[in-house]
């Protein structure tokens, strides 16, 4: 029987990483104030470095969504009453110190989640599936995680191909008004989804024809084994989380 193959940057059991990620993400959800969230972000960055995850690259990939974070932060600051007003129009406070604080918290929370999630990218989907399966998560569910990861690039490629095809017909997307551009995106959505669903069906048939769900259980070619360093990661993640909770809950 083989145990998992060590690779650069992924020589920890994915279950140990999963515990660390769950601890960091849970802390980010529990706290509302910027100070503890900033500390949790520092912990997340240090963890990402320890696991040799490229968190910067992960954040860069999400660049296109940054405006959504900014918009959410702005809306949050707009609708938060309280604190000293920083910007007012006709007596209506548009920006307050409390609003700014909440917006900052949202951005920090997103960053914690992105950075900590990038840690999981250092394990292969197969290892994650195996880890979940050994945690007694039904294989069908664990396998779906791997397939979902597999389909994200397919969805991106479909979108890219559709946009390229439209631009090859002479349409300059960047030079048309936003409203029309959104309309064009909506036209692309249905064929894109239909194509991806078609591929998903083909994949499902291929999987079934290779004996998927043949029995209630299955064997594994490679079995993961938690080693001392993995237990060390789990213990450290739990202890640090409890410590952070204890310190900031009493402040």
């Amino acid at each position, binding site marked *: 029987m083989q145990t998992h193959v060590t690779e650069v940057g992924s020589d920890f059991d994915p279950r140990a990483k999963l515990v660390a990620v769950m601890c960091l993400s849970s802390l980010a959800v529990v706290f509302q104030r910027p100070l503890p969230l900033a500390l949790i972000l520092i912990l997340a960055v240090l963890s990402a470095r320890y696991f040799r995850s490229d968190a910067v690259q992960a954040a860069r990939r999400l660049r296109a969504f940054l405006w959504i974070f900014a918009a959410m932060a702005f809306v949050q600051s707009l609708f938060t009453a309280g604190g000293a007003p920083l910007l007012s129009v006709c007596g209506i406070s548009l920006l307050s110190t409390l609003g700014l604080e909440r917006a900052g918290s949202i951005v920090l929370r997103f960053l914690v989640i992105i950075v900590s999630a990038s840690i999981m990218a250092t394990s292969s*989907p197969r290892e994650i599936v195996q880890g979940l399966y050994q945690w007694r998560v039904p294989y069908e569910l664990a396998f779906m995680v*791997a397939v979902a990861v597999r389909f994200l690039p397919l969805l991106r490629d479909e979108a890219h191909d559709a946009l390229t095809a439209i631009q090859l017909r002479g349409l300059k997307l960047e030079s048309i008004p936003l409203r029309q551009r959104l309309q064009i995106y909506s036209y692309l959505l249905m064929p894109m989804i239909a194509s991806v669903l078609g591929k998903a069906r083909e994949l499902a*048939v291929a*999987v079934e024809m290779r004996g998927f769900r043949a*029995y209630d259980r*299955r064997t*594994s*070619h490679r079995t993961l084994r938690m080693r001392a360093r993995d237990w060390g990661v789990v213990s450290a993640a739990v202890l640090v989380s409890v410590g952070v909770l204890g310190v900031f809950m009493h402040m």
Partner: protein
Amino acid sequence: MSALLCVRDLSYSFPGKDSPLFSGVNLTVGAGEVVGIVGLSGSGKTTLCHCLSGIIPLIRTGDMQGVVRVMDRSTRDLTPARIATRLGIVFQNPDTQLFFPRVEDEVAFGPENLCLAPEEIDRRITAALKTVGMEGFRHRNPHRLSGGEKQMIALASVLSLDPRVLIFDEALSQLDAAGRKRILDLIGDLKRDGRAIVMVEHNPDNLVVAGQMMLLHEGTMSKFDGQWQRFAAL
């Protein structure tokens, strides 16, 4: 020659359609025999493959009449998992057959589903990769390989289940000349190994290894005399 795949009076209609896509299809494929089926786009080649491999009626629906027997058992009496140990199918698009980021895991998927022992799984991975000449790719990411190499891995994933019957559903259509030659050479080896093989193709040129050729046209299947000019004129 013992028949590993036997089809009798097969017909199929899509759900909600009255007229059948094809009917009266008869086919017998013995050990060490390659049967080629040609047909134009839309003639029902892929649907026929689905019927031969048990995908219809076990996974997809529709009105299937007649009998398909794989190694003396009707596909209606088998589960997809039981069929998988008897019959393997390689599809047109390798990208929708591969889902793990390592060749070894991909090939291991089938034997793992069948609850084989890890040592046996390892033996099967080695044997399947050796058969397709891809031993050196065991730890590579299949998604970063060429189309021909991906199709070889898809075939190795099927061969790891050791089926005696193999169906190739336009498996050469997305490959370049070198990729096609590799697969065709391999099909020749599998034929000599005593497997029963059905090759379904749009392009008759890809059927050079077939000993018998059939034409699926306008809902019926008949012997194809190999006159490509006649096929091209259809």
